[in-house]
Protein backbone atom coordinates (compact mmCIF):
# COMPACT_ATOMS: atom_id res chain seq x y z
CA UNK A 1 0.00 0.00 0.00
CA UNK A 2 1.36 3.40 -1.00
CA UNK A 3 0.82 6.02 1.71
CA UNK A 4 0.65 9.73 0.80
CA UNK A 5 0.21 12.59 3.25
CA UNK A 6 -1.41 15.88 2.23
CA UNK A 7 -0.67 18.54 4.84
CA UNK A 8 -1.55 22.22 5.07
CA UNK A 9 -4.15 24.66 6.36
CA UNK A 10 -7.82 24.43 5.35
CA UNK A 11 -7.53 27.71 3.44
CA UNK A 12 -4.85 26.31 1.10
CA UNK A 13 -7.28 24.06 -0.78
CA UNK A 14 -6.27 20.87 1.02
CA UNK A 15 -9.73 19.24 1.00
CA UNK A 16 -10.05 19.86 -2.73
CA UNK A 17 -6.60 18.41 -3.38
CA UNK A 18 -7.32 15.31 -1.28
CA UNK A 19 -10.43 14.83 -3.41
CA UNK A 20 -8.34 15.07 -6.60
CA UNK A 21 -5.92 12.44 -5.26
CA UNK A 22 -8.83 10.17 -4.35
CA UNK A 23 -10.03 10.46 -7.96
CA UNK A 24 -6.61 9.76 -9.48
CA UNK A 25 -5.79 6.83 -7.17
CA UNK A 26 -9.25 5.20 -7.19
CA UNK A 27 -8.87 4.77 -10.96
CA UNK A 28 -5.96 2.45 -10.21
CA UNK A 29 -6.85 0.64 -6.97
CA UNK A 30 -8.58 0.72 -3.59
CA UNK A 31 -8.21 3.91 -1.55
CA UNK A 32 -8.36 4.64 2.20
CA UNK A 33 -8.44 8.14 3.73
CA UNK A 34 -7.29 8.69 7.32
CA UNK A 35 -7.60 11.95 9.26
CA UNK A 36 -6.56 13.04 12.72
CA UNK A 37 -9.85 14.78 13.40
CA UNK A 38 -11.48 13.73 16.61
CA UNK A 39 -15.05 12.91 15.60
CA UNK A 40 -15.19 9.25 16.47
CA UNK A 41 -16.45 9.32 20.06
CA UNK A 42 -19.36 11.44 18.92
CA UNK A 43 -20.28 9.16 16.00
CA UNK A 44 -24.04 9.07 15.47
CA UNK A 45 -25.84 5.81 15.88
CA UNK A 46 -22.98 3.85 17.41
CA UNK A 47 -24.15 2.39 20.71
CA UNK A 48 -21.56 3.01 23.40
CA UNK A 49 -19.46 5.36 21.26
CA UNK A 50 -19.48 8.05 23.93
CA UNK A 51 -19.43 5.63 26.88
CA UNK A 52 -15.95 5.54 28.44
CA UNK A 53 -16.47 1.99 29.70
CA UNK A 54 -16.72 0.73 26.10
CA UNK A 55 -13.39 0.27 24.34
CA UNK A 56 -14.73 -0.33 20.84
CA UNK A 57 -18.17 0.12 19.31
CA UNK A 58 -19.02 -1.02 15.80
CA UNK A 59 -22.07 -0.71 13.59
CA UNK A 60 -22.38 -3.18 10.71
CA UNK A 61 -25.20 -2.85 8.18
CA UNK A 62 -26.12 -3.67 4.62
CA UNK A 63 -24.52 -0.40 3.42
CA UNK A 64 -21.23 -0.87 5.23
CA UNK A 65 -19.77 -0.39 8.66
CA UNK A 66 -18.62 2.30 11.08
CA UNK A 67 -16.46 1.91 14.13
CA UNK A 68 -15.24 4.02 17.03
CA UNK A 69 -12.75 3.16 19.73
CA UNK A 70 -10.00 4.33 22.02
CA UNK A 71 -7.25 1.75 21.55
CA UNK A 72 -5.76 2.38 18.08
CA UNK A 73 -2.93 4.72 17.14
CA UNK A 74 -2.59 6.21 13.68
CA UNK A 75 0.18 3.70 12.87
CA UNK A 76 -2.06 0.81 13.98
CA UNK A 77 -4.84 2.02 11.69
CA UNK A 78 -2.50 2.35 8.69
CA UNK A 79 -1.11 -1.16 9.35
CA UNK A 80 -4.67 -2.53 9.51
CA UNK A 81 -5.56 -0.97 6.15
CA UNK A 82 -2.45 -2.26 4.38
CA UNK A 83 -3.54 -5.79 3.33
CA UNK A 84 -6.80 -4.60 1.77
CA UNK A 85 -5.94 -1.23 0.22
CA UNK A 86 -3.61 -0.13 -2.57
CA UNK A 87 -3.43 3.51 -1.42
CA UNK A 88 -3.84 5.41 1.83
CA UNK A 89 -4.19 9.21 1.97
CA UNK A 90 -3.30 10.83 5.29
CA UNK A 91 -5.32 14.05 5.45
CA UNK A 92 -3.32 16.71 7.34
CA UNK A 93 -1.28 14.30 9.49
CA UNK A 94 1.71 16.60 9.96
CA UNK A 95 3.88 14.30 12.10
CA UNK A 96 3.78 11.51 9.49
CA UNK A 97 7.10 10.40 7.96
CA UNK A 98 5.68 9.11 4.65
CA UNK A 99 5.96 10.89 1.26
CA UNK A 100 3.84 14.03 1.42
CA UNK A 101 2.46 17.08 -0.39
CA UNK A 102 3.05 20.21 1.69
CA UNK A 103 0.78 23.24 1.31
CA UNK A 104 0.97 26.75 2.74
CA UNK A 105 4.47 26.45 4.19
CA UNK A 106 3.56 24.23 7.18
CA UNK A 107 6.27 22.12 8.81
CA UNK A 108 6.39 18.52 7.62
CA UNK A 109 8.86 15.96 8.95
CA UNK A 110 8.42 13.40 6.17
CA UNK A 111 9.68 13.14 2.60
CA UNK A 112 8.15 16.25 0.89
CA UNK A 113 7.43 15.34 -2.73
CA UNK A 114 6.31 18.87 -3.52
CA UNK A 115 5.99 22.08 -1.51
CA UNK A 116 3.58 24.74 -2.82
CA UNK A 117 1.39 27.56 -1.49
CA UNK A 118 -2.01 26.15 -2.49
CA UNK A 119 -3.48 22.89 -3.76
CA UNK A 120 -4.15 24.34 -7.19
CA UNK A 121 -0.38 24.43 -7.83
CA UNK A 122 0.02 20.64 -7.49
CA UNK A 123 0.53 18.38 -10.52
CA UNK A 124 -1.49 15.40 -9.21
CA UNK A 125 -0.32 12.94 -11.89
CA UNK A 126 3.35 13.84 -11.35
CA UNK A 127 2.99 13.29 -7.58
CA UNK A 128 1.36 9.88 -8.17
CA UNK A 129 4.22 8.89 -10.51
CA UNK A 130 6.80 9.88 -7.88
CA UNK A 131 4.86 8.05 -5.15
CA UNK A 132 5.10 4.84 -7.17
CA UNK A 133 8.91 5.14 -7.16
CA UNK A 134 8.96 5.00 -3.34
CA UNK A 135 9.02 1.74 -1.35
CA UNK A 136 5.37 0.95 -0.44
CA UNK A 137 4.26 0.24 3.12
CA UNK A 138 3.97 -3.49 3.86
CA UNK A 139 3.05 -5.51 6.93
CA UNK A 140 3.24 -9.22 7.65
CA UNK A 141 -0.50 -9.43 6.90
CA UNK A 142 -0.22 -7.63 3.56
CA UNK A 143 2.57 -10.00 2.45
CA UNK A 144 0.61 -13.08 3.58
CA UNK A 145 -2.39 -11.72 1.65
CA UNK A 146 -0.25 -11.42 -1.49
CA UNK A 147 1.27 -14.90 -1.05
CA UNK A 148 -2.09 -16.60 -0.60
CA UNK A 149 -3.43 -14.85 -3.72
CA UNK A 150 -0.69 -16.41 -5.87
CA UNK A 151 -1.27 -19.07 -8.51
CA UNK A 152 -0.78 -22.49 -6.95
CA UNK A 153 -2.44 -21.46 -3.67
CA UNK A 154 -4.90 -24.34 -4.00
CA UNK A 155 -1.97 -26.80 -3.69
CA UNK A 156 -0.54 -25.05 -0.64
CA UNK A 157 -1.20 -26.35 2.86
CA UNK A 158 1.36 -24.24 4.71
CA UNK A 159 2.39 -20.63 5.23
CA UNK A 160 5.63 -20.06 7.14
CA UNK A 161 6.73 -16.53 8.04
CA UNK A 162 9.76 -14.87 9.56
CA UNK A 163 9.62 -11.39 11.10
CA UNK A 164 12.84 -9.64 12.14
CA UNK A 165 12.39 -6.88 14.71
CA UNK A 166 14.59 -4.38 16.54
CA UNK A 167 15.97 -6.01 19.69
CA UNK A 168 16.45 -3.50 22.51
CA UNK A 169 19.36 -5.53 23.94
CA UNK A 170 21.04 -8.93 23.85
CA UNK A 171 21.28 -9.37 27.58
CA UNK A 172 20.21 -7.48 30.69
CA UNK A 173 23.62 -5.75 31.06
CA UNK A 174 23.63 -4.23 27.55
CA UNK A 175 22.90 -0.60 26.92
CA UNK A 176 19.56 -0.23 25.18
CA UNK A 177 19.25 0.04 21.43
CA UNK A 178 16.87 2.95 20.81
CA UNK A 179 16.54 2.48 17.05
CA UNK A 180 18.21 1.20 13.92
CA UNK A 181 18.65 3.24 10.77
CA UNK A 182 18.73 1.32 7.50
CA UNK A 183 20.27 2.62 4.28
CA UNK A 184 19.13 0.71 1.19
CA UNK A 185 20.76 0.58 -2.25
CA UNK A 186 17.39 1.19 -3.90
CA UNK A 187 16.88 -0.61 -7.18
CA UNK A 188 19.66 -3.16 -6.59
CA UNK A 189 18.16 -4.29 -3.25
CA UNK A 190 14.78 -4.99 -4.88
CA UNK A 191 16.50 -6.80 -7.78
CA UNK A 192 18.40 -9.08 -5.43
CA UNK A 193 15.34 -9.84 -3.32
CA UNK A 194 13.44 -10.70 -6.51
CA UNK A 195 16.28 -13.07 -7.53
CA UNK A 196 16.18 -14.82 -4.14
CA UNK A 197 12.37 -15.13 -4.32
CA UNK A 198 12.55 -16.59 -7.84
CA UNK A 199 15.35 -19.04 -6.87
CA UNK A 200 13.42 -20.32 -3.85
CA UNK A 201 10.20 -20.64 -5.88
CA UNK A 202 12.02 -23.18 -8.08
CA UNK A 203 12.01 -25.62 -5.17
CA UNK A 204 9.65 -28.57 -5.22
CA UNK A 205 6.48 -27.74 -3.28
CA UNK A 206 7.27 -24.03 -2.86
CA UNK A 207 4.56 -21.93 -4.53
CA UNK A 208 5.31 -18.34 -3.54
CA UNK A 209 8.01 -16.43 -1.66
CA UNK A 210 7.52 -12.77 -0.68
CA UNK A 211 10.12 -10.62 1.10
CA UNK A 212 10.13 -7.06 2.33
CA UNK A 213 12.72 -4.99 4.21
CA UNK A 214 11.90 -1.60 5.69
CA UNK A 215 14.29 1.32 5.30
CA UNK A 216 15.02 4.48 7.27
CA UNK A 217 14.59 4.66 11.06
CA UNK A 218 13.00 1.65 12.80
CA UNK A 219 12.49 1.99 16.58
CA UNK A 220 13.15 -0.69 19.23
CA UNK A 221 10.39 -3.30 19.19
CA UNK A 222 9.26 -2.46 15.64
CA UNK A 223 9.40 -4.85 12.68
CA UNK A 224 12.26 -4.62 10.16
CA UNK A 225 12.00 -7.49 7.72
CA UNK A 226 9.49 -10.12 6.63
CA UNK A 227 9.80 -13.39 4.69
CA UNK A 228 6.62 -15.25 3.75
CA UNK A 229 6.58 -18.69 2.12
CA UNK A 230 3.53 -20.44 0.70
CA UNK A 231 4.26 -24.15 0.29
CA UNK A 232 2.61 -27.52 -0.11
CA UNK A 233 3.70 -28.86 3.27
CA UNK A 234 5.43 -27.60 6.40
CA UNK A 235 8.95 -29.11 5.91
CA UNK A 236 9.66 -27.13 2.72
CA UNK A 237 7.87 -24.09 4.17
CA UNK A 238 10.12 -23.94 7.28
CA UNK A 239 13.31 -24.73 5.35
CA UNK A 240 12.61 -22.11 2.69
CA UNK A 241 11.72 -19.34 5.12
CA UNK A 242 14.97 -20.00 6.99
CA UNK A 243 17.09 -20.02 3.80
CA UNK A 244 15.25 -16.92 2.57
CA UNK A 245 16.18 -14.74 5.55
CA UNK A 246 19.77 -16.09 5.53
CA UNK A 247 20.20 -15.20 1.86
CA UNK A 248 18.58 -11.77 2.34
CA UNK A 249 21.05 -10.98 5.14
CA UNK A 250 24.00 -12.15 3.00
CA UNK A 251 23.13 -10.74 -0.41
CA UNK A 252 20.88 -7.69 -0.27
CA UNK A 253 22.67 -4.30 -0.12
CA UNK A 254 21.15 -2.80 3.01
CA UNK A 255 23.27 -1.21 5.76
CA UNK A 256 22.39 -0.91 9.40
CA UNK A 257 23.43 1.83 11.80
CA UNK A 258 22.60 1.10 15.41
CA UNK A 259 21.77 3.84 17.91
CA UNK A 260 22.08 2.90 21.58
CA UNK A 261 21.84 5.00 24.72
CA UNK A 262 25.67 4.96 24.46
CA UNK A 263 26.09 6.27 20.88
CA UNK A 264 25.84 5.29 17.21
CA UNK A 265 27.81 2.83 15.09
CA UNK A 266 27.63 0.96 11.77
CA UNK A 267 26.86 -2.67 12.56
CA UNK A 268 29.37 -4.03 9.98
CA UNK A 269 32.17 -2.20 11.84
CA UNK A 270 31.34 -3.81 15.16
CA UNK A 271 30.02 -7.20 14.16
CA UNK A 272 30.30 -9.62 17.05
CA UNK A 273 28.73 -12.45 15.09
CA UNK A 274 25.43 -12.10 16.94
CA UNK A 275 22.34 -11.83 14.75
Amino acid at each position, binding site marked *: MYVLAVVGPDGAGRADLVDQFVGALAADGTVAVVTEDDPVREADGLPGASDERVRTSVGVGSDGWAAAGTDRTLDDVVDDLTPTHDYCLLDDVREATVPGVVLGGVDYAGDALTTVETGSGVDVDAVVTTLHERIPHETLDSLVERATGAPGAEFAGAIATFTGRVRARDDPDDERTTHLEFETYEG*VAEERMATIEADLEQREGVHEVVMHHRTGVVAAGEDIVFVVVLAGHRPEAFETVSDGIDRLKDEV*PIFKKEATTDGEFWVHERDTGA*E
Partner: protein
Amino acid sequence: MQWKLFADIAERAGTDAVAVRLDGDDPTVGDALDALLETYPALRERVLVDGEPESRDGIAPDVNVLLDGADVFTTADGLATEVSEGAELALFPPVSGG
Protein backbone atom coordinates in the same frame (compact mmCIF):
# COMPACT_ATOMS: atom_id res chain seq x y z
CA MET B 1 29.22 7.59 -15.20
CA GLN B 2 28.04 7.74 -11.64
CA TRP B 3 29.47 6.34 -8.39
CA LYS B 4 27.09 5.56 -5.56
CA LEU B 5 28.58 5.33 -2.07
CA PHE B 6 27.00 3.76 1.02
CA ALA B 7 27.25 3.63 4.82
CA ASP B 8 30.65 4.56 6.32
CA ILE B 9 32.15 4.98 2.83
CA ALA B 10 29.59 7.70 2.00
CA GLU B 11 30.20 9.32 5.38
CA ARG B 12 33.96 9.36 4.78
CA ALA B 13 33.49 11.01 1.37
CA GLY B 14 30.83 13.39 2.69
CA THR B 15 28.58 12.51 -0.26
CA ASP B 16 26.68 9.49 -1.57
CA ALA B 17 26.79 10.22 -5.32
CA VAL B 18 29.74 11.30 -7.47
CA ALA B 19 29.72 11.80 -11.24
CA VAL B 20 33.04 11.12 -13.00
CA ARG B 21 34.10 11.77 -16.61
CA LEU B 22 36.77 9.64 -18.26
CA ASP B 23 38.40 10.88 -21.44
CA GLY B 24 40.57 7.95 -22.56
CA ASP B 25 39.53 5.08 -24.87
CA ASP B 26 37.84 2.00 -23.40
CA PRO B 27 37.71 3.18 -19.79
CA THR B 28 37.61 0.54 -17.03
CA VAL B 29 36.22 0.29 -13.51
CA GLY B 30 39.79 0.90 -12.32
CA ASP B 31 39.94 4.21 -14.26
CA ALA B 32 36.61 5.26 -12.74
CA LEU B 33 37.90 4.33 -9.28
CA ASP B 34 41.10 6.35 -9.81
CA ALA B 35 39.00 9.37 -10.78
CA LEU B 36 36.86 8.93 -7.66
CA LEU B 37 39.88 8.58 -5.34
CA GLU B 38 41.53 11.62 -6.90
CA THR B 39 38.50 13.75 -6.00
CA TYR B 40 38.00 12.08 -2.59
CA PRO B 41 41.49 11.05 -1.34
CA ALA B 42 40.02 10.31 2.11
CA LEU B 43 38.54 7.13 0.59
CA ARG B 44 41.96 5.75 -0.36
CA GLU B 45 42.85 4.15 3.01
CA ARG B 46 39.31 2.73 3.36
CA VAL B 47 39.06 1.17 -0.10
CA LEU B 48 42.64 0.14 -0.99
CA VAL B 49 44.86 -2.32 0.82
CA ASP B 50 48.33 -3.76 0.20
CA GLY B 51 49.06 -7.44 0.01
CA GLU B 52 45.58 -8.61 -0.91
CA PRO B 53 45.27 -11.51 -3.35
CA GLU B 54 45.60 -10.51 -6.99
CA SER B 55 41.98 -11.52 -7.59
CA ARG B 56 40.89 -8.44 -5.59
CA ASP B 57 43.09 -5.97 -7.53
CA GLY B 58 44.19 -4.28 -4.30
CA ILE B 59 40.65 -3.61 -3.06
CA ALA B 60 40.07 -4.20 0.67
CA PRO B 61 38.26 -7.46 1.45
CA ASP B 62 35.40 -5.62 3.18
CA VAL B 63 34.61 -3.37 0.22
CA ASN B 64 32.19 -4.37 -2.54
CA VAL B 65 32.57 -2.90 -6.03
CA LEU B 66 29.46 -3.15 -8.22
CA LEU B 67 28.90 -2.26 -11.87
CA ASP B 68 25.22 -1.86 -12.77
CA GLY B 69 24.17 -3.99 -9.78
CA ALA B 70 26.68 -6.85 -10.27
CA ASP B 71 29.90 -7.54 -8.31
CA VAL B 72 32.86 -6.85 -10.62
CA PHE B 73 35.06 -9.50 -8.98
CA THR B 74 32.62 -12.42 -9.08
CA THR B 75 30.77 -11.62 -12.32
CA ALA B 76 33.30 -9.67 -14.44
CA ASP B 77 37.03 -8.89 -14.82
CA GLY B 78 37.45 -6.91 -11.60
CA LEU B 79 38.91 -3.45 -12.05
CA ALA B 80 39.77 -4.31 -15.69
CA THR B 81 36.06 -4.50 -16.58
CA GLU B 82 35.15 -1.90 -19.20
CA VAL B 83 32.53 0.68 -18.32
CA SER B 84 30.19 2.64 -20.56
CA GLU B 85 29.37 6.33 -20.24
CA GLY B 86 25.98 5.70 -18.57
CA ALA B 87 27.23 3.08 -16.08
CA GLU B 88 26.29 3.09 -12.40
CA LEU B 89 29.12 2.00 -10.10
CA ALA B 90 28.82 1.40 -6.38
CA LEU B 91 31.16 1.03 -3.39
CA PHE B 92 29.82 -0.41 -0.16
CA PRO B 93 30.88 -2.28 3.00
CA PRO B 94 29.64 -5.76 4.01
CA VAL B 95 25.83 -5.78 3.94
CA SER B 96 24.04 -5.84 7.30
CA GLY B 97 20.30 -5.90 6.61
CA GLY B 98 17.78 -7.87 8.65
